[in-house]
C-alpha cells in the first residue's frame, strides 16, 4: 500500500491498473454526529482532517485515527476511517504500537492539551524522540472542557478556572519549542478559525515521514473566556507570510517563543534527514507489515533455540 494518487475521472490509465475513485469529504462522514458545543473549535479540526485525507486521496480503510479521552478525543467517532478511542493520555502509546505493527497504515492521533501535554506527557516526550511516523493533532483549548472547566497544562498564568478560582499561578507548557527540542521532525501550529490553512498543515504532517505535531488553537467557547476566537483572530499571523524558513533551527526557536500581541501559526520546524522509527527498525526492513506475517517458528529456528539450552 503506497500513498494513493487520486485519479481524475476519465484520466488516461493503462489497462489492468485499477482506477482509484477519489473520495470526497462527504465520504468521510462518521457514524455519529459530533456532540461538541456549538461553536467549538474542534469542528474546525474535524473538517480540516477530512479535507486533508480527501486531498491526499487516502481511502477510509488506509487511515487509523487514534485518540485518548476528552472532548476533542471523541473525534474518531465522527470520521469514517478506522479508529481507536483509547484511554486518557495513552493515545500516542497505542498509536505507536499500531503504527509499528502495520507501518503501511497512515496513523493520525487526535486529542486535547490535557490528554497530550498533561496526563500523556511522558508518552509525548518519548514518541517525539523516537520520531515515530505519526501525525499528532492537539486540539489546544487551554482548559479542561469535558470535566467542566479546570486549569490545563497550557492554561495561561493568572487564568481563573474552577480549580484555580484565584488565578492560575503555574507557568504553561509551550508545546512548540518542547517538540522541537524533543526531536519531533515536523512542528506546526494551526488555528481552527483558519480551516484551510490548518488542513494544509495536517496534509503536510501526514505526508511527512516521521513524527509531526500540529498544535491547533481550538477555542473552548464554554469554559475558556480568555483564549477566545477574538483573542486568536487579533493576534495570529502566518509564518510563511513573514518568510520564515522552517529548516532554520534558531529561527524556528525564536518564532516558537513568540507569544503576546502577536502569535505565529504555520510550520515552525521541519527536517527530513532523520529516519523514522520504522525505517530504523531492522525487523521492518523486509517482509511487509508485522501484522500480516505468518506466525510461529520454522523447525530450523526451533532447533537453533533448543541448541542454545543444551
Amino acid at each position, binding site marked *: *500500500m503506497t500513498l494513493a494518487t487520486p485519479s481524475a475521472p476519465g484520466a488516461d490509465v493503462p489497462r489492468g491498473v485499477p482506477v482509484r475513485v477519489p473520495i470526497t469529504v462527504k465520504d468521510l462522514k*462518521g*457514524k*455519529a*454526529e459530533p*456532540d461538541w458545543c456549538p461553536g467549538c473549535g474542534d469542528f474546525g479540526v474535524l473538517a480540516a482532517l477530512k479535507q486533508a485525507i480527501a486531498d491526499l486521496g487516502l*481511502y*477510509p*480503510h*488506509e487511515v*487509523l485515527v487514534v485518540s485518548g479521552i476528552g472532548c476533542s478525543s*471523541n473525534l*474518531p*467517532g465522527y470520521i469514517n*476511517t*478506522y*479508529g*481507536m*478511542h*483509547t*484511554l486518557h*493520555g*495513552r493515545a500516542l*502509546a*497505542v*498509536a*505507536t*504500537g*499500531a*503504527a*509499528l*505493527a*502495520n507501518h*503501511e*497504515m497512515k496513523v493520525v492521533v487526535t486529542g486535547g492539551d490535557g490528554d497530550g501535554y498533561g496526563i500523556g506527557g*511522558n*508518552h509525548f*516526550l*518519548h514518541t517525539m524522540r523516537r520520531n515515530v511516523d505519526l501525525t499528532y493533532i492537539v486540539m489546544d483549548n487551554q482548559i479542561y472542557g469535558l470535566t467542566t472547566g479546570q486549569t490545563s497544562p497550557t492554561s495561561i498564568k493568572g487564568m481563573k478556572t474552577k480549580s484555580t478560582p484565584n488565578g492560575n499561578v503555574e507557568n504553561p507548557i509551550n508545546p512548540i519549542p518542547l517538540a522541537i527540542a524533543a526531536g519531533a521532525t515536523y512542528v506546526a501550529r494551526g488555528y481552527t478559525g483558519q480551516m484551510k490553512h490548518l488542513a494544509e498543515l495536517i496534509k503536510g504532517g501526514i505526508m511527512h515521514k516521521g513524527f509531526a505535531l500540529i498544535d491547533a488553537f481550538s477555542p473552548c467557547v464554554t469554559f475558556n473566556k480568555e483564549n477566545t476566537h477574538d483573542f486568536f483572530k487579533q493576534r495570529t499571523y502566518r509564518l510563511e507570510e513573514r518568510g520564515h524558513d522552517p529548516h532554520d533551527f534558531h529561527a524556528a526557536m525564536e518564532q516558537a517563543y513568540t507569544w503576546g500581541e502577536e502569535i505565529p501559526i504555520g510550520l515552525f520546524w521541519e527536517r527530513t534527514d532523520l529516519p523514522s522509527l520504522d525505517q530504523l*527498525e*531492522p*525487523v*521492518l526492513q523486509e*517482509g511487509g*507489515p*508485522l*501484522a*500480516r*506475517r*505468518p*506466525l*510461529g*517458528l520454522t*523447525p530450523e*529456528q*526451533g532447533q537453533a*533455540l*533448543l541448541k542454545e*539450552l*543444551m
Partner: protein
Amino acid sequence: MRTIDLAIAIGGAAGQGIATPGNILARILVRRGLHVNVYDAYQSIIRGGHIFLTLRTSDEPVLSHGDKLDVLITLNQDTMDRHLKLMGPGSAVLYNADKIKPGQPAPGVQLCPFSVKELAPNVRGDLVQNTLALAALLRLVGVEFQILGDIIAHQFRAKGEAVIAENVGVARAGYDHADKHFKPFPVPLPDTGKPLAFLDGNTALAMGGAAAGVKFYCAYPMSPSSGVLHWMAAHGRKLGIMVRQVEDELGVINMAVGAAHAGTRAMCATSGGGFALMTEALGAAAMMEIPVVCINVQRAGPATGVPTKTEQGDLWQALGAGQGDYPRIIVAPTCIEECFHVVPQLFNLVDRFQCPGIILSDLLLSEGRFSIDPAELDFDVKIDRGNVIGLNGSNGHANGTYKRYEITPDGISPRAIPGTEGYVHVVATDEHDEDGVLISDEFTNPLKRQAMHEKRMRKMEGVLELLDPPELYGPADADVTLIGWGSTRGVIREAMGQLAAEGISANNLQVKWLVPLHAREILDVVGKAKRTIIVENNYSGQFARYLRSETSIVADGHVRKYDGEPFMPHHIVEGVKKVLAGTAKQFVPTHEIMV
C-alpha cells in the same frame, strides 16, 4: 530409583562471579542427563552484599532446591561465617585458605582448603578462586577433567590460545589438588546418556511467546521479569519479533494493545509495580475486545517491596486489575514446562475470546533455572487466531454492514483488522453499541449498556469449557490434600514424599487456570478429601480467600510464607504435621538460611 541427590551451594558477594561457575556446573550436569534445579538468593545491589546460589542435581527430576547442602563453596569470609553451620556429616566445604578462615565445622564435615597463591601463583584476577573451586568440586563428585577443559576452551575461545591455556592450567591445578588432598563423594555423578536442556522460567516464557507467533514484545525493565525482555532483545531480529523498551509500563501495555489491534500477537512482561500501572489498559483491552498477553512475574511487595525476592502476592491484584467487571483469563504456570506451554495456549484463548490474558509467574519460577526434557520444547504449536477478518488481505465485502461488536450467543463478534477494506470501524473504551458508536455520545441507553456488558462477560463461559481442570496428584484416599497454585507444585510434591516416609499420606491439587476457575471440579475433589491444607507464598492467604469466594471451601489449615524466600520441603512437612496434630491452624515457617 534415585541414586544421586546432591546439593551444591556457592556463596559470595555480588560481583564475585558466582553465576559463571554455577552455569558451567549446570551445563556439565545436564549434558550428562542429570536433572538440576537452581535457586539464586540475591539482593538488589550490583556489587557487594551476599549471593547464595543453590544447585541441586539428581538422576531423577528435582522438584525443589531441597532442604540440605552437600557442598558449600565459599568465595568470601561472610559466606563461611553465615553458612558453615548448615553443613552436616558427609558434606564438604571448599574455600580459598589464603583469605578465608573456616571456623568450627560440625562433626563429619570435610574442610577442603586450597591456596590460590600456591596453585596459581602467576595468574591475576579474583576469578581464579572460582575456577579452582569448580575444578576441585568436579573431582569430588567424580566428573572427569576433560569436560571442564573443553568448556573453558569454549568460553575463552575469543581470547586466544594463551588465555585458554592459562585457565585450563588453573583448572587442572585445582582438580589435581582435590585428587591428592580431598575425599571424594562415594557415588560419582553418572552419565545417563540422555542430555537435557537447561533454562530459566523467563526464557521458557519468552520462547513460548516466540512459538506462539509473538511479533511485538515491549517492556520496561523490572526485576524479576527483565529476563523475558533480555531473551526477546537477543533473539528478536533473528526471529522477526519487534522488541521495544518503552518509557513506562503505561506505555508498555498501551503499545502492546495498539500492536495487537493492528493484527499482531503482542506480549509484555513486568512485575507487580509495573502491573499496577497497566491495570487500566487491561480493562481497555477487554472493552475494545483486543487480545493481548501480559506476564506478571511476582516479587515480594507491596510497593518496591523486596525486589529480588519471591512471593505469590499479586493474585488479588490480577483478579481486580482495573475498574469495572471485564473478561480476562489468568493462568499461573506450575513448573518450567508449563512456562513454555501456557503461552501459545493463552494466545489461542485470547485471540478466540478477544480479551486480555494474564500470566502469573514469580521470581522462583522465572529466575529459577531448571533442566527440562528437550522434547517438551516443541515449537510446532497449534495457532488459532479465532474469528478474525482481514489478516490475509481484504475481501472488500460487508461495506457498511459490518458491526464490530455484533451481539452473538457466545459473545464473540468477528474481529476486523484495521487496514481491511470494507470493514471500517471505531473501537472505544467508552461503552458502545454493536457498531462501535459510543452510547454516551448523545443519550445513554441502559438497555444497550446492559446488552453489551453481558455480551462481553458471556465470553468467559466458553473459555472454561476449553480448559483442563486441575487433577489430583497422589493417592486418592490420602490423609490430607495439599492445595496450591502456580510455582509451589514442585516443593509441595517433594514434601508429599517426605510425609509419606513419616507415614502420612498426602495428595496435591495444584491449580494453574485461575480465571476462569474450575469451581465445580475443585469442589468434587475437595469434597472427597479427608483434610485440606492450602500452601501459598503470601501473608493473607490470597488463594485461600479466592477459593472460598468461588467455592465456599474453607480449608482445615494453612501453610504460608512471606519472608521473600521460597518454601523448602521440610517447611511444608512441619506445617502439615502441626495442622494434622491440631496444634496449629496456620503455620508460618522460619527460614533458616540467612540470605
